[in-house]
């Protein structure tokens, strides 16, 4: 897949944005319940860097994305993009969703050009741009197919193309490779990291997979469980361009062990507070306390 990565003039470089979250809080009030999803969350998503966010389920990652994208408003604090406050959805902050959000009733081509079309860009320009980007992601021959007729990996590439053609200042990816089989997932990571290394752009990537996180990231942010806060920021100093062989490097394994430790700590806390998402730890904590040993 690397062979398709030749520079394409249609995708402009340099529209890098910087997102600053300052003491952001988000509280949900439902009936009598009061859920503090985020509390005093401060983070800078640096210009041109790939920031990866991890944390136990239910730590407010999705809320965070929704607020950066402008689908929801924070209860307190400010979110700014290049110094200007974020208000409502806009095409300078595009999200690639967990479950594919390609419009199933449009062909790949129509999906990719949708944004440009509704913004009223000149059709000839759209066509040229779309062709370039479709070739870039290796989907040019598939442009007339519907999303359901593509493989999972192709769908993800189509979605990346739909976002990139609009030249967003920040690209937000919410567990984009979830649901793909392990093999496709690894190849997509390679493809995506290649794309990133070529074009830069500010990226925020959310994932559950520890290997994926370390393989991709410039900076790894680990969140705490309810209320969501920044627990740790780890600079990933693996050299770029990244290569799959790094997965077997000792530096990689070191970072992995360190990250796992932090995540385990958070999951235990989540488990202790009764989160169903951290349920997997049941039995594990008990057996580690030696209160109950497996005996043949």
């Amino acid at each position: 897949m690397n062979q398709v990565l030749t520079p394409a003039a249609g995708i402009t470089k340099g529209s890098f944005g910087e997102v600053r979250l300052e003491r952001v809080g988000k509280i949900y009030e439902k009936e009598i319940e009061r859920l503090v999803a985020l509390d005093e969350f401060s983070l800078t998503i640096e210009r041109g860097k790939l920031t990866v966010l991890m944390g136990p389920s239910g730590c407010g990652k999705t809320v965070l994305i929704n607020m950066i994208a402008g689908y929801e408003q924070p209860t307190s604090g400010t979110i700014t993009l290049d110094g200007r406050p974020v208000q409502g959805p806009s095409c300078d902050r595009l999200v690639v969703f967990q479950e594919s959000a390609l419009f199933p009733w449009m062909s790949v081509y129509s999906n990719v050009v949708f944004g440009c079309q509704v913004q009223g860009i000149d059709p000839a320009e759209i066509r040229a741009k779309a062709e370039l980007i479709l070739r870039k992601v290796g989907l040019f021959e598939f442009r007339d197919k519907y999303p359901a007729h593509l493989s999972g990996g192709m769908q993800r590439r189509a979605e990346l193309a739909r976002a990139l053609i609009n030249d967003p200042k920040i690209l937000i990816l919410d567990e984009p490779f979830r649901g793909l089989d392990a093999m496709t997932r690894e190849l997509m990571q390679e493809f995506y990291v290649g794309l990133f290394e070529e074009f830069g752009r500010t990226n925020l990537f959310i994932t559950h997979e520890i290997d994926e996180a370390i393989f991709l990231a410039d900076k790894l942010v680990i969140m705490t469980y309810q209320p969501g806060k920044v627990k740790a920021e780890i600079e990933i100093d693996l050299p770029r361009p990244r290569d799959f062989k790094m997965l077997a490097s000792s530096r990689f394994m070191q970072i992995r062990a360190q990250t796992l430790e932090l995540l385990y700590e958070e999951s235990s806390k989540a488990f202790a507070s009764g989160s169903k998402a951290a349920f997997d730890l049941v039995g594990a904590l008990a057996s580690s306390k030696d209160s109950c040993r497996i005996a043949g």
Partner: protein
Amino acid sequence: MKTPRGKLLKKVFSARTLRGLSSIVLFVVLWQLVVYLKVPYLQNLPYPEDVASHGLAAAVSTGYWIDWGLSLSRIFIGFIAAQLLGIPLGLAIGISRVFRGFTFPVFEILRPIPPIAWIPLAILFWPTRELSIYFLVFIGAFFIIVINVIQGVSNISVNLKWAAFSLGAKPNDIFWRILLPGSLPSIITGMTVGMGVTWNVLIAAEMIAAQGGLGRTTWEAYTNHNIPYIVVGMVSIGIAGYLCSTLLRWLGEKAMPWKRKF
């Protein structure tokens, strides 16, 4: 390598096809036998060949085809009216919470009333019998389509709407390019289900109140004690209903190429 023809032959002569055919033959033989042996209650059934000869006689008569035309035109007029009113109403209820709050309860009060129970009021209200039958057919399809459209709209993933907003879509784009195609599968389902109910309602309405039509001739065959023709009528209604559903399925496939499987 196998030739396509070989594949076709294999399919035609597969165990499944043979079983299916033999079961149909068995069914006809059993029917014959039941009548021949004068099994209690079922002895009044006509012989299959009687039905067949009556069917053939009907197929070459103009009156029979006029009945087809009458029934089909009633179905289409009532059905299309139901879609024309039901789809916009469903979309409006599905999109606007406020509108839903006002209209849905009334809708829910009227919906459980069986369409056939509307017959007397329909006859009373509409100036002609024909109009009242259109109305009944309309009622049969209307509630189902509305419910399905509402479901269709609310089943559209919020991510799709958000994605469209992010990409710069205006409410107008969202409606025409997201909500409408997104609820299309439910609309088609609603139409298919509605079509089944509609035929049911039409037959009852024709039996009770119409002049001409497949339901009416079946009923007249009953009053004349022409039992083979009753069966001919039933089979014709079955075929007509089946053709209508097939037409809808075909339309659905045309309208939703993205759903097609390879």
